[in-house]
């Protein structure tokens, strides 16, 4: 893992997103304080609206999937897989993300499937894996 330090937890927006510049990539980081994983990172680029806006979408859940809704045309993107719920040909990249000692860290090399992402992550509990 190559964790990049991004910002402090206090810089995040509760139940909402911010955008970070990591290795030249625009990464949308969402902060769900009551969630087990707490932070999720996906690409900030909305491939349907063709603009860097996903961090400004509304966060929520649809049928059990944690999602962000694009602020442009409202498609939902799964925060854990990057899949677009409305169009299964569209996926956005997802990145490993964690909170470590009050700092938010992202590893942009890791565009891994969910399971691997969680296994590699240091501060998460194992039981969520089965979910």
């Amino acid at each position, binding site marked *: 893992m190559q964790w990049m330090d*991004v*910002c402090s937890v206090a*810089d*995040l*927006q*509760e*139940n*909402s997103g*911010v*955008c*970070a*510049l*990591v290795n*030249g*990539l*625009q990464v949308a*980081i969402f902060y*769900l304080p009551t969630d087990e994983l707490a932070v999720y990172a996906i*690409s900030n*680029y909305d*491939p349907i*609206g*063709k*603009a*860097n*806006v996903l961090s*400004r*979408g*509304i*966060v*929520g*859940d*649809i*049928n059990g999937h*944690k*999602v962000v*809704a694009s*602020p*442009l045309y*409202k498609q939902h993107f799964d925060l854990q897989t990057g899949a677009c719920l409305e169009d299964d040909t569209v996926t*956005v*990249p997802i990145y490993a993300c964690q909170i470590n000692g009050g700092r938010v860290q992202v590893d942009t090399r890791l565009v891994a499937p969910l399971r691997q992402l969680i296994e590699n992550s240091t501060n998460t509990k194992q039981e969520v894996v089965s979910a």
Partner: protein
Amino acid sequence: MSIKQTLVVIGNGMVGQHFLASLVASPAKDQYDIVTFCEEPRPAYDRVHLSAFFSGTTAKELSLVEDGFFEQHNITLHLGDKAASIDRAAKIVTSAKGVTIHYDKLVLATGSYPFVPPVAGHDRAQCLVYRTIEDLEAMAAAAKTGKVGTVVGGGLLGLEAAKALKDLGLETHIVEFAPRLMAVQLDEAGGAMLRRKIEDLGVIVHTGKNTSLITDGETCINKMCFADGEELETDIVLFSAGIRPRDDIARACGLEVGQRGGIVIDNDCKTSDADIYAIGECALWNGMIYGLVAPGYAMARTAVANLTGEAGSFTGADMSTKLKLMGVDVASIGDAHARSQGAMVYSYQNGADEIYKRLVVSADGKQLLGAVLVGDASGYSTLLQYCLNGIELPENPDALILPHRSDESVGLGPDALPVSATICSCYNVTKGKLCTAIEAGCTTMDGLKKETQAATGCGGCAALVKSVLNSELAKQGVEVNTDLCEHFAYTRQELHTLVRVEQIKTFHELLIKHGKGLGCEICKPTVGSILASQWNEHILGKDHTALQDTNDNFLANIQKDGTYSVVPRIAGGEISPDMLIALGQVGKKYKLYTKITGGQRVDLFGATLEQLPLIWKELIDAGFESGHAYGKSLRTVKSCVGSSWCRYGVDDSVGLAIELENRYKGLRSPHKIKFAVSGCTRECAEAQSKDIGIIATENGWNLYVCGNGGMKPRHADLFATGLDKETLIKTIDRVLSFYVRTADRLQRTSVWMENMEGGLDYLKSVIIDDKLGLGEQLEEQMQHVIDTYQCEWKTTIEDKSKLKRFHHFINSDGTDDNVVFVEERGQIRPARDDERKHFNLVEVA
């Protein structure tokens, strides 16, 4: 193969038109070349709703003929031409303008004319009748100069005419020859109750009066002298003393007519000449003239069936009626007078609430023969179905008219009706027909109306049609799901109530108490809006930021490339040159694309997140405030220049617009709200296309509500007239608060009102008559929003913690390199895909 026959229809009134429409819809329509004579200057219109003409419904809106109907179906229409004679031997019709036409088949649909008693002086000035649009125009003209109006005749139509006079602002009298009102439909007790109610409304009723002379008045234009020696000064005399069939043309060509008039027809609607039919109010069947539209329509369908070789006959019609007369519900069903042999009567009288009900039941107590309802006609549909379908009555029939003091329901649910039950008698739609349409996919009231025509005539059956729809949908397992989303099993209105009653201040609290999951982009902004309209805390407060749609979230309007546009408030569209220059300087400094909006303000495009607070700092220093263009909230109050400059102006439209815009700015609502104010009836501000429209008149402000432009434009409805400013503002306060409370998410005022059971009348009763007793509460709610107003931008730029989010990156001062502008007509615009090819897009994979 066959040569077409010529079919001539004389009269293009309600029934004549229904005949044509049924004929062209039948498979045999190509058998005939169709010609119709229409004496009036316009083709058929809705006479039943004629009175709506006075509340602003136009002649065009009353029309029953779709644009292009005659052309599309190759029907020759002789408009404004009266058929003058019929030569039955030669089979030729000659018109007043000299047109002659040979017919193979002839249909008489000449209707009737208002009977004017041959009292001396009946033809004096301002002695009018009530049947055509021209009659109403004459009334409106006469009411301009007159003060007193008197209706002769206290029947259904007379009461309706009296309401029209009252609404025109005249002192109104009703003079009736019989000892009670609505003598045909009501018994004595019912008539007396109706009289009390109508007198309560300020109409003066004189019964048992025989007019002997109309002559010069002293204080008014006319004076009516009665047989008993009394006199009544009045400007307008409006005769509504019954109708007489227009059978002169039939009489002249030797067709059989009744002793007291009416063209005699048989069960096929044929006259004494087998090639001539008569339908509607001119026809006499079994000694009866039917003065209602539903039986006329049934005759029209019978004639069509006969002419096209289908089966069908007219065997009499039900004359039951339900009306709202001057706000009083009145209904009469079947044998209201208990004339049938052995009939038993139950009656219920409630003097306090002024309700009278009476049931007429068969000797064995099993069948309902008739009923009279005054003051509360809610049981009409149920009773009518008992009566028409011969459904056996419950053991204690009086339960049907006694007030419900227990939970036990006595209504006849739609499931209790046989498939053959006629639900809509105007268009002869049975329950079976409705069910078939519903099964085929008509799952909304609108769709069902279009498919079956049910509830599109007099409208009396609408409630029953709706309940059939709901019960069928429930049976199909189509759950009529009104949940806001998967997180809240409530409607927006219910959530609003929960927030208000339980004093809930945050989304989180509401979710814990009444919802599940995390929420989504539907419930979050909805609840955000409810909280804002109820408590009016800053929408970017800690608990609220994450609820807002991106526009609200950054207090600006997102554009296709992720940049934002900025719209400062320019109340009423009034702006000084200095302010305009200041605005221009900001636009220039930040190189913003600048455009004038449809709401009389200026939109500045192309601002990045980091620029927004800088731009707003300068705008606020120059004296601007947020325009709320980003919110579902009050947008603009557009105005014309009004009486200060315009030579036609009646009042200061700009002044009022500014006052209203400043009053309601910041109000969060289910959808955007637009206003406009015009300084006179020329309506340069287009107020009638707005949610709230106001037009100045000599008598005060006229208020229109629930209009909109956009995807599905709708004219606003006239809501109240001649208001002073204080009453106007109070009324708007109430309408808007009620809208905020009860509308669905993203529902404009038009759809909100149209979906309301009872529509405009109901809305009026809640707002103007304060039927729900909510008036004060609604005003208080609005006052709270007004008192807690803040410029959202001013608060934001003064609060460091709120400003943190206005950067593209949380960890860098860099900007979004995907935002690329090119120049066009001297200003910027986002680059198109083909123009940005050479840029290296952000790597995505």
